[in-house]
């Protein structure tokens, strides 16, 4: 499994091999076991990667890069619209007024700024109808909001793909609205650049490589962490230049709360449950898959703790950011004045086609061969120590067994097996060192 070998899906994260020290911290936290260490460097298996960003958070040497769009890319367009998640403003707490932040965004080069959640109110109308009409065998309906969750289901819970709500997330609804609005104003499509300020990697992947046969009108994704620094810099230096940025600030309280945990469940009818945090979500989906969960109409599932306020590109503390959103929502209006326009512009785009499972055959497509391999894995599991130390360069003993059966690892990559086999005389020290260096690179002089 060499770097770049599996590239069927867009990858929002990249290992910078010059910075990676092969410490395997990322490998141990990956929820889909998409990482291995080889030649002293971490390697991502992109068929399995769901862009959740856990590895990015964990990496002690900042060797994992977010594959975002170059900021200067925006100047290729005459009209430069930035869709901003409300939580972005929440990071600055009360130190900088929203209006000042928007003016700074203007001085950085954007011509219009809008809350990305503008489409939420229209989505609520459609969601309530969708959930009411959902057939029994695709309940509970699972929100399509968090792209890392959608991808998690594709990879790890393929039997639940039909539970995923096939309504566009607010980001895409808002983008479609602006695309139509600019078109109606007579502006040629190639003059409009729609950029999304993203709090996480999963949303970059979702914009570049959406599910359900949908093509996004979004031109590019801007890294929120990067823009935060740029805004702070201009603010500190008082270097905000005069500009005519068009600002739309006003959104409803439902829209402001949408990205927080229970943002969706609070706004819809029926029995709805909100779960945040990857481990919590996986535990619950296991139960849904077993048919254990009855009487729940809707699930709001979010990859990050505290939902998007805990996104990997959010600089502020996730609890404070979420709290800021709730405070702002408490004084916000309840009615969206543009809802009629949304109905007019977005109705035709709202529904995408069913999400396909990511059929990843770990042991190959031939089921007879796969059964043989699995039996071998089961036997190996009895031999391996079962302590999941990861010193073999695979995340746990079972994963190592799988890698051995697939010809990607040697049983003597396990330190326990290695010592035993050296004692038995079936492996000499030089062979053992060569095997170790294959995984961890050359770390010592012997």
């Amino acid at each position, binding site marked *: 499994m060499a770097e770049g070998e599996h590239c069927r899906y867009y990858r929002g994260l990249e290992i910078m091999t010059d910075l990676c020290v092969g410490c395997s911290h990322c490998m141990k936290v990956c929820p889909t076991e998409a990482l291995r260490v080889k030649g002293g460097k971490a390697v991502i298996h992109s068929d399995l990667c769901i862009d959740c960003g856990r590895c990015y958070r964990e990496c002690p040497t900042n060797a994992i890069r977010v594959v975002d769009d170059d900021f200067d890319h925006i100047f290729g367009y005459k009209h430069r619209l930035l869709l901003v998640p409300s939580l972005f403003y929440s990071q600055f707490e009360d130190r900088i007024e929203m209006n000042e932040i928007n003016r700074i965004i203007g001085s950085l080069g954007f011509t219009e700024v809008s809350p990305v959640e503008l489409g939420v109110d229209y989505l609520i109308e459609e969601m309530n109808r969708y959930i009411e009409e959902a057939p029994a065998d695709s309940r509970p309906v699972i929100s399509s909001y968090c792209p890392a969750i959608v991808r998690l289901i594709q990879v790890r819970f393929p039997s639940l793909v039909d539970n995923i709500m096939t309504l566009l997330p607010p980001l895409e609804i808002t983008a479609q609205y602006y695309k139509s609005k600019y078109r109606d104003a007579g502006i040629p499509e190639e003059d409009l650049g729609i950029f999304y300020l993203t709090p996480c990697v999963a949303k970059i992947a979702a914009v570049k490589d959406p599910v359900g046969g949908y093509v996004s009108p979004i031109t590019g994704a801007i890294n929120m962490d990067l823009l935060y620094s740029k805004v702070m810099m201009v603010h500190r230096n008082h270097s905000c230049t005069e500009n005519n940025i068009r600002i739309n600030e006003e959104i409803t309280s439902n829209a402001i709360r949408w990205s927080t945990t229970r943002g969706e469940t609070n706004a819809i009818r029926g029995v709805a449950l909100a779960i945040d945090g990857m481990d919590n979500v996986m535990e619950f989906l296991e139960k849904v898959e077993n048919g254990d969960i009855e009487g729940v109409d809707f699930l709001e599932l979010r990859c990050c703790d505290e939902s998007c306020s805990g996104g990997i590109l959010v600089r502020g503390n996730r609890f404070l950011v979420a709290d800021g959103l709730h405070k702002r929502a408490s004084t916000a209006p309840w009615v969206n004045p543009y809802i009629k326009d949304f109905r007019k512009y977005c109705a035709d785009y709202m529904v995408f086609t069913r999400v396909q499972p990511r059929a990843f055959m770990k042991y190959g497509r031939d089921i007879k061969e*796969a059964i043989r391999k699995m039996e071998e894995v089961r036997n190996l599991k009895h031999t391996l120590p079962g302590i999941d130390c990861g010193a073999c360069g695979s995340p746990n003993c079972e994963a190592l067994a799988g890698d051995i059966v697939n010809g990607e690892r040697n049983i003597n990559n396990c330190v326990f097996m290695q010592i035993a086999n050296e004692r038995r005389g079936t492996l000499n020290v030089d062979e053992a060192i060569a095997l170790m260096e294959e995984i961890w690179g050359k770390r010592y002089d012997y």
Partner: protein
Amino acid sequence: MELVYTVEGGDFNKAGHASSQIKRVLKQLGVPPDIIKRVVVAMYEAEVNIVAHAWRGVITAGVDESGIRVVLDDEGPGIPNIAQAMEKGYSTASQEVRDMGFGAGMGLPNIRSNVDEFNISSVVNKGTVLDFFIRF
């Protein structure tokens, strides 16, 4: 490939363990999701039947390229009238079991509607053997 699990009567905390394990195996084999769904429903119902009604049991699942055969062999009170037990809504579950949300009398009919082959035999005061097959 043969997978064997033991089930203790009355232990509702562990009910569903065997079906969860089988589900994992079938997912790794790349069996289509709709088939896995049927296997899980049938196995879960059958597993709960042992927990709710029998004293103990052994579940043996055989997987090959044609499909999965599951044999659930329990020691227990047995089923005096199998035809009646196959009717929707018929249940002999105790109030205690019903209070836990089981015993709606949908178990056996639900299993049969999800499988391709279905056999059941029972001896009163000895036990029940349920055997089903689902094609891949």
